[in-house]
């Protein structure tokens, strides 16, 4: 594969007929309930229109009818592969609205779980995308490691998915005994596994020829389209909110931002694999530097008192009752808080009107915005390249439709 990896316009014999084909909403290669209306000239995609909204469940509207702490499980279910990120975006926004500082241990635990979730999300992406490209065994290998992460989630939070682990003020409970050991086992294992995935795919002729030089979108165009995350970094733009903005424990962590050079599907694959290794490094540092202390803030106006206090302290009982029945009130204001999710910038915009329910919760979901670049990636390429590009775009339709 020594030839230049730049995209050349395809020269095909003129076809007379353009055929409009509907792909989805339930096609397995669409990774969710995405429908594509594609104009085909022979096997070349000439025009493409994504049709979305099939799993729209009105989560943003429902959030307006729930007290602040009850919104957390709702928002988790938007992008169902990166649920910790949704929780962090929402809880972080509410904490900033009420001016609540979270304790250092909670910052580190959140960082740790976010990075575990990033690996989990990238594993789901790698397994399903390689499956689309014909490398079926990758799915089983990736889901083997993913299951280990889910085991860790279950151990710490009681749930494998949609954990509701992050709370306004910190995390709901400390990591259990034995968690650290299991996690260390996992982080020792993970870089080796990433190497194995690379060994399987990097010398796979089919995989290489289907990813190299396909789906290129210039960096400037990606920025115009608001694309963020691995897609943008694969085009050579080292933009990562973990470095750019100061949130959680990321300023104290040492990690690199992997970038690509050409911006084709192969670079997108390489960037994500490298990100997994960087995430492992962050987890390791977070675990080594995990500060002692409380795992949740000690502000009884926003955080539930410990269970043990309820039988001895009347005040705690009142706080508990107040928080569980009415919830806490947030002073009027609005705020946009953004974090780096596995797919790019995940922003949460919350408007508070002084009551115990948010007046507006909006999520700027990276899948939704990045999907706009799909037309640029796929038009004037083969249908098969379109499938590869869609996989590398990695949209989660739960996040797109909300």
């Amino acid at each position, binding site marked *: 594969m020594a030839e230049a990896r730049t995209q050349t316009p395809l020269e095909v014999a003129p076809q007379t007929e353009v055929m409009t084909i509907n792909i989805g909403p339930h096609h397995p290669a669409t990774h969710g309930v995405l429908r594509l209306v594609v104009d085909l000239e022979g096997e070349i995609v000439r025009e493409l229109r994504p049709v979305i909204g099939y799993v729209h469940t009105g989560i943003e509207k429902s959030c307006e009818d729930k007290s602040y702490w009850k919104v957390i499980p709702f928002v988790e279910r938007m992008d169902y592969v990166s649920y910790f990120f949704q929780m962090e975006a929402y809880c972080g926004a509410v904490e900033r609205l009420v001016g609540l500082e979270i304790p250092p241990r909670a910052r580190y635990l959140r960082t740790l779980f976010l990075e575990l979730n990033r690996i989990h999300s990238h594993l789901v992406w790698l397994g399903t995308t390689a499956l689309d490209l014909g490398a079926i065994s990758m799915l089983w290998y990736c889901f083997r490691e993913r299951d280990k992460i889910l085991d860790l989630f279950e151990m710490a939070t009681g749930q494998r998915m949609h954990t509701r682990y992050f709370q306004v003020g910190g995390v709901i409970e400390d990591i259990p005994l034995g968690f650290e050991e299991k996690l260390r086992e996992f982080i020792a294992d993970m870089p080796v596994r990433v190497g194995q995935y690379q060994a399987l795919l990097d010398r796979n002729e089919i995989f290489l020829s289907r990813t190299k030089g396909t789906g290129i979108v210039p960096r400037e165009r990606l920025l115009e389209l608001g694309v963020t995350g691995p897609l943008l970094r694969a085009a050579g733009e080292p933009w990562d909110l973990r470095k750019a903005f100061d949130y959680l424990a990321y300023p104290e962590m040492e990690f690199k931002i992997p970038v690509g050079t050409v911006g084709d599907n192969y670079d997108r694959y390489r960037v994500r694999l490298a990100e997994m290794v960087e995430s492992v490094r962050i987890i390791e540092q977070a675990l080594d530097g995990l500060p002692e202390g409380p795992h949740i803030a000690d502000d009884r106006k926003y955080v539930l008192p410990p269970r043990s206090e309820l039988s001895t302290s009347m005040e705690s009982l009142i706080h508990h009752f107040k928080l569980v029945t009415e919830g806490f009130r947030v002073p009027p204001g609005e705020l946009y808080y953004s974090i780096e999710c596995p797919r790019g*910038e995940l922003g949460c915009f919350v408007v508070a009107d002084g009551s115990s329910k948010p007046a507006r919760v909006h999520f700027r979901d990276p899948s*939704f915005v990045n999907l706009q670049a799909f037309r640029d990636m796929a038009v004037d390429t083969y249908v098969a390249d379109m499938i590869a590009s869609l996989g590398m775009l990695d949209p989660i339709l739960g996040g797109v439709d909300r």
Partner: protein
Amino acid sequence: MPDAPGLELIRGEIEQDHPGAVLDTGFEHEQAYLAVDPGQLLAVLTWLRDAPGQGYRFLSSLHAADYLPAEPRFAVHYELLNRDRVERIRVKALLADPAAGDGNAQSLPEIDSCVELFPTAEFQEREVFDFFGIVFRGHPDLTRILLPEDYVGWPQRRDFPVGGEPVTFTFNERNYG
């Protein structure tokens, strides 16, 4: 984020070319915002994007909110980002509800589309139209994006009830319809 004098400077420079464009500036939870006259929105956005020394070239997010019962009722927010200086600024265009003025429930608030300036706004403006009924003048394809095309109503408005829509199952239709 520009600091307070920086924000006033921005305001002053915009006012020089476009008097009356900026209605208010301020900080909310350490985030700078400019409240602008919706009629001159595009002028302000263009200035923030292209004026030397500004360079807010990246539109992170575009969203709307309904501040009922406040007046003006709606606002469209543009979260602009300068990636070189890592500064965010929020441009807020407040829109009155024309239906409250002329009594015609069909009339919708209108604002200029910024798709020409920021192509990323295309989906997001459609989303705002879909949920709030805010019309973006000049948008290439202003149709509903997440809701069905034949949907009636603007569900993210605060006066639209949660659960206000009956779920129609064939069983219910047959027996109780």
